[in-house]
């Protein structure tokens, strides 16, 4: 990413009183958001609560995606592949293998994604920039066509059903589908988001994260400082695949179906859209982007049949006018407010 687009290393600046003040404000907002999310099912309409589930799913997926994009500087147009792997993992495990443990499903699907990501990543990290994007797009579509064509295994264009999993062994069979989704499943996913978010925060602020940023800023210099560029890029790729698969599992359980369109390249494009919408240069940007996108899309869909057009216009506006996304705009406003004080 060029200098003009990223004005801060995500998560940088830990020292100084200024940083501390920023951190406190951020912490307060974070806690407030968590409280709202935790209380949401009790005061909001079930329809809106069911929207939050895909938002959780994409928030987790994008945390991983942005490790690769915002922090390492690699734009993948094929990460829907891993989301789809997660979805199909959940489908195959629940309906074909009778495995209901949500914990096992998450782990198995995540690992499956990592295993697939190894050969894809090994090939892809040999390239940068546009070539990386096209190559990942190619792999994504390869997987999509595999899902589509081999309908004996994958159910073709109808996909495979995803059955309700057991959360810590409990299937809550007394609840109907909606009650399960906006009840125990909702809270489980919220906790999952917090845990995975915390893990990603640590990763990003670790020496590993520092190296990724160095690779993004100037990979040649990073080499001269002893950084094994390809290895680190691959590691980031694998971690991002894992997170995307987790997101895919949640999505599939929410809809009850794993279908091949999840792997289509335009879905990968949406992942990028959401990340940039929220702000790729900020740790919380992708999280914000997931929520904003899901709600925006839902509202647009209810307003007009030409919602794709308006989504496209939104993306164009973001790219041209607000490249640092919602968080970028928020940060600019915050600095303006502070200056006036």
């Amino acid at each position: 990413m060029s200098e003009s687009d990223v004005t801060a290393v995500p998560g940088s600046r830990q020292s100084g009183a200024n940083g501390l003040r920023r951190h406190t404000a951020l912490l307060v907002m974070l806690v407030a958001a968590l409280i709202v999310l935790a209380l949401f099912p009790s005061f909001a309409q079930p329809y809106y609560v069911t929207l939050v589930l895909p938002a959780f799913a994409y928030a987790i997926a994008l945390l991983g995606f942005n490790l690769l994009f915002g922090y390492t500087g690699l734009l993948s147009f094929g990460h829907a592949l891993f989301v789809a792997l997660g979805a199909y993992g959940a489908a195959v495990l629940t309906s074909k293998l009778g495995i209901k443990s949500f914990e096992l499903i998450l782990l198995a699907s995540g690992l499956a994604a990592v295993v697939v990501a190894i050969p894809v990543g090994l090939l892809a990290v040999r390239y940068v920039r546009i070539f990386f994007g096209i190559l990942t797009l190619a792999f994504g579509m390869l997987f999509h066509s595999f899902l589509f064509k081999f309908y004996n295994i994958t159910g073709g264009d109808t996909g495979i059903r995803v059955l309700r999993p057991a959360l810590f062994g409990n299937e809550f069979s007394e609840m109907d589908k909606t009650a399960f989704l906006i009840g125990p499943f909702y809270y489980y996913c919220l906790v999952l988001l917090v845990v995975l978010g915390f893990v990603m925060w640590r990763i990003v602020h670790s020496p590993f994260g520092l190296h990724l940023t160095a690779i993004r800023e100037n990979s040649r210099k990073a080499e001269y400082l002893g950084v094994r560029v390809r290895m680190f890029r691959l590691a980031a790729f694998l971690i991002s695949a894992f997170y995307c698969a987790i997101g895919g599992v949640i999505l599939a359980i929410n809809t009850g179906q794993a279908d091949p369109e999840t792997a289509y390249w335009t879905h990968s494009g949406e992942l990028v859209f959401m990340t940039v919408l929220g702000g790729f240069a900020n740790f919380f940007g992708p999280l914000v982007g997931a929520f904003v996108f899901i709600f925006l899309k839902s509202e647009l869909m209810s307003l007009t049949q030409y919602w794709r057009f308006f989504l496209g216009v939104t993306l164009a506006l973001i790219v041209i006018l607000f490249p640092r996304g919602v968080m970028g705009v928020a940060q600019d406003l915050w600095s303006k407010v502070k200056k006036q004080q």
Partner: protein
Amino acid sequence: MTALIETVGVSKAYGSFVALDGVSLSVASGELLSVVGPNGAGKTTLVNVLTGLLKPSSGSVRFKGEDIAGIGPVALAKRGMARAFQLVHIFPAMTVAQTIGVAVVSQTSRSLRLFASVATDAALRSRVREVATIFGLDTKLDTESRLLSQGEKKLLDIASAFALTPEVILLDEPTSGVSSGDKHGIMRTLMDAAKHAGVQAIILVEHDMNLVAEYSTRIIALKEGKVLADLPPKQFFADPDIVAAVVGKLVGRMSQRAA
């Protein structure tokens, strides 16, 4: 003294163009070797061979007794040699502290740790501060690299190379683009840093003959890919033919200085 770096009969040809022709040299601990010569003499090619970037067409290049032909920058850093370029390389959005931090961490096993926190690593921070102070950048630890002045960027570039605690450091025109008043300042900082960082030998590619005369322990002059001279400064500048071949008109002044 055993050689830290040595090349034996290194030649590099690109088709019919011979960039280096049978260059043999050795650098031992405690030396500051300056590589001089007119443009096109093969200095950059020699440096690229010495730093494992280029494989010589013939001959060998060894570092601490091991063959380093074409091993690449990452392996080189691991073995204990660092390099700073003439053109400044920075990480634009990273602060001075983070830049130096990358170098410090990459050499330890810490680099693969996914969950260790950079912010709370006291050892890392003190080491970073140490390096930054030597180069006069301690007041700018939290400044983003792209906001530094050109001179400061250059210092940071060199500082990050030193932060690798290399045994040998290779500097490509470290004082280029710097005013003559500052040049000596930079050289003194470099010598100081070398002592602190435990650097055993420095190889310098320089055009400024005054600096070369004052700081080198030995000078190698290249011309058209061949070694023209390999002498300590006193003998080097005492020979008018050699000086003429390398610098031309400044002969008179140079021989006066060396006397």
